[in-house]
């Protein structure tokens, strides 16, 4: 434990860990000192000179990202002199900045704009022509680079040096001709490339997937958890509902990592970041009985019908790690006595690395394990179906076609006397079931995922469900209620 010491910030006495950077200690007590180059995960090169503060006894202004807290330190971050120094640093940042905010995708979340409103607001004295550099560099599949907007804070180059160790970006040339460029022969296509967009304080690095789709001030931000793998990175879901005609009509505009020191730190992988594309594809919104002929049912009617099917026993429950803790818990109760199948098949297994990516590409197998649920193998299930030993096949958010192949899956599903498919999206095989129930996607419900280390994270509801979709656990509970009103539990 480091020693706690007292120091003064803007005349206020504050206690902090000895040696903690003043910029961090100030943030801890709600004082934001302007900065561009400093990033807690990428170090403090001290090149932007924005975080200048007055330190009593120091002959000249100090930068708070390189000043350590010590007993009796007396810091002024909002004195006239400190503010003037911060404003002048900002002015110098803007000497060669193109000020093309109206066409810049960073507008609304730009460090230059934010600090100009906060500490700048001066009349420009620049009468000279600005430097011209490359404005449209395709840095990689996900990232565009505009060298003119760049303020050379080196966050991105430090990210590819220290975090991914892939070195695709560097600062080349010298002085005012200096620019961030691709390392000769390299393309910014590492598995974490999207993070450079997040850490870029200005519009120099923008997201090719997101740019020009919707202005950021129209977006709503909701705390969520990435369902892309069993890491369960904390993310923020940025949704576009205020301007539905923007963003090609898609409701989710982008995912951004959310700082969580226990799970993902500041980062997320590109696979998770850009993995939301299929979220609204082939959405299920109606409660349907598909056979013998298609017919829309009320939730009550569907639950009663399914309850009576379940009463006959010989139930196989197929799910995946997409279920929330709440879903797993409700499923365990409803399907007590049924056989469970959720083990990840090759379609849910992918690459993993030492940074964040895990090989199980579903978020929540751990909760099933914690509840003591055991999964049978899908080969076993296929054999049971084939032999007519399964009467009710209940599938939640799992495309059997990706396990058995579309044709075989359809045939096997038809062997069960009654098939129930439940999920947010239709799949190739979902037409082969008798009942099809619409469930909410993770962004339309709140719940919890338990990651591979057993850490539980909550995700919040970001969007309204489509049609009459309900969370899986609510459907399970409604079926259980239907079972109980008829006085009998689901049989084995």
């Amino acid at each position, binding site marked *: 434990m480091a020693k706690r010491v007292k120091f003064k910030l803007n005349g206020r006495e504050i206690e902090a860990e000895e040696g903690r950077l003043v910029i961090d200690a100030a943030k801890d007590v709600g004082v934001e000192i302007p900065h561009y180059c400093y990033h807690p995960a990428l170090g403090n*090169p*001290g*090149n*932007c*000179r924005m975080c*200048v503060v007055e330190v009593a006894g120091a002959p*000249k*202004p100090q930068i708070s990202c*390189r000043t350590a807290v010590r007993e009796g330190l007396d810091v002024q971050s909002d004195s006239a002199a400190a503010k003037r*120094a911060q404003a*002048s*640093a900002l*002015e*110098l*940042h803007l*000497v*060669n900045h193109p000020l093309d905010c109206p066409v810049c995708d960073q507008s609304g979340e730009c460090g230059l704009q934010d600090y100009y409103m906060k500490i700048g607001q001066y009349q420009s*004295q*620049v*009468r*000279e*022509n600005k*430097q011209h550099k490359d404005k449209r560099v395709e840095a990689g599949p996900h990232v565009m680079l505009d060298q003119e907007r760049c*303020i*050379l804070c080196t966050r991105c180059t430090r990210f590819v040096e220290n975090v991914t160790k892939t070195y695709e970006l560097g*600062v080349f*040339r*010298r*002085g*005012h*001709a*200096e620019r961030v460029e691709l390392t000769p022969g390299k393309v910014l296509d590492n598995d974490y490339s999207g993070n450079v967009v997040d850490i870029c304080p200005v519009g120099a690095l923008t997201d090719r997937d997101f740019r020009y789709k919707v202005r950021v001030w129209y977006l709503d931000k909701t705390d969520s958890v990435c369902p892309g793998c069993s890491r369960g990175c904390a993310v923020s879901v940025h949704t576009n509902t205020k301007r539905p005609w923007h963003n090609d009509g898609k409701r989710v505009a982008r995912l951004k990592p959310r700082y969580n020191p226990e799970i993902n730190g500041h980062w997320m992988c590109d696979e998770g970041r850009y993995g939301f594309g299929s979220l609204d594809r082939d959405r299920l919104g109606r409660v349907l009985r598909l056979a013998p002929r298609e017919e829309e049912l009320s939730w009550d009617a569907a639950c009663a019908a399914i309850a009576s099917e379940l009463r006959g026993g010989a139930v196989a429950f197929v799910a995946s790690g997409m279920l929330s803790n709440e879903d797993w818990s409700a499923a365990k109760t409803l399907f007590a006595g049924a056989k469970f199948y959720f083990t990840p098949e090759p379609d849910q297994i992918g690459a993993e690395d030492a940074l964040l990516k895990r090989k199980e590409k579903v978020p929540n197998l751990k909760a099933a394990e914690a509840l003591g649920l055991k999964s049978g193998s899908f080969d076993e299930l296929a054999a049971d179906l084939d032999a007519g030993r399964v009467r009710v096949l209940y599938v939640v958010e799992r495309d059997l076609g990706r396990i058995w192949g579309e044709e075989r899956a359809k045939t096997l599903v038809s062997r069960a006397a009654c098939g129930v498919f439940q999920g947010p999206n239709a799949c190739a095989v979902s037409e082969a079931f008798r009942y099809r129930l619409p469930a909410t996607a993770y962004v339309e419900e709140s719940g919890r995922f338990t990651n591979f280390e057993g850490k539980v994270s909550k995700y919040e509801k970001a969007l309204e469900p489509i049609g009459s979709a309900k969370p899986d656990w609510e459907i399970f509970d409604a079926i259980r209620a239907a079972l109980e009103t008829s006085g009998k539990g689901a049989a084995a």
Partner: protein
Amino acid sequence: MTKILTKHFDEATLHELATYERLGGYQGLKKALAMAPADVTAEVVKSNLRGLGGAGFPTGAKWGTVPPTDKVPGPRYVVVNCDESEPGCFKDRVLVTRAPHQLIEGLLIAAHAVGARQTFIFIRGEYQNQYDVLARAVAEAAAAGHAKHASIDLMRGAGAYISGLDTALLETMEGKKAWPRQPPPFPTVAGLMGQPTVVNNVETLSMLPFILREGGEAFAKIGSAKNGGTVVFSVSGHVEKPGVYEVPMGTKLRDVLALAGGVRGGRKLKCVIPGGTSMPPLMEKDLDLALDFDAIRAAGTFLGAGGMIVLDETADAVEVAHNIERFLAHESCGQCTPCREGSFWNEEILHRMLHGKATAEDAPNLARIGENITGKVICALGDTVGMVTRAYLQRFPEDFKKRVSSNG
């Protein structure tokens, strides 16, 4: 006048080992090697030797900040800063060409004092001839058995002015972009490859053979208070006899000018840049200033590396400021924003002023910009960017005013 470094410059073959040894060379090293390292440092402290690369930091005190091996284990290094790039400075070039062994002897003494087994001479890339002379001298010294306690390797710069700054020099040596580091830690604690490293200038190290041979007190006696020994000025500009002149610390500016033959053609003196273009100029009223680090500092400028540029009445302050700012903008490493953008901005404004487009706001704006740069940057180059134009503005406001009124 007493000379130390240039005393034997009349010897045509001083660069050869035999001549150097005949004139008492390597006696200081011999004496140093017989002493305990701490005693060598004590002798240098006694000498009042100051860092002659520009900063004027007491050399003995600098060595004293190298931590003991039980605190910071691993190798120690000594690096010679021979990246002489300051416009107006050319004394290291002469010292290396004429007396390479004097430097090598000094380097080997320093290595013994700080416990370095490896030393490096970082020489600017443009100094091809000097490199050849040094390479030959190093081989000679090694063959004669002088470098048994420490190796000497030569490294060549790639042309960046900023590499002459100690921490940028170390970055360059590590194969990186020449971006200055921000102390602390200082190089003597964490320098080359993170190990304690003493970076000393050519002239500083060249003084050591004398100090060890004749004693620190003898050296201190030559100079002024707290400024031991001599200093080598590179005198250029509007003088009759530009060249390298060695004088004791504390010599009057008037006398240095006299050595160089005075202002050319009997013209009136405008100002004297004392230490290389980065330093604000001294004025005619300063002619009786006794030149040493502290006196020049008190007069509002710096001794720097002794690159003395004399300007006569025909010089125009706007042209001079533009010339210097253009150089600084070209050589700014680009790491920190105030210097990178400020040097560009200054140069552009001054360029516009030179081309008949000055406005009344330009001078106050230049002063304001300068104030916003100096003291708010990573290294001394940035401080200079903000300092130079302001110095000329303050000393020669009429030259700037003239530009505005001449617009018509």
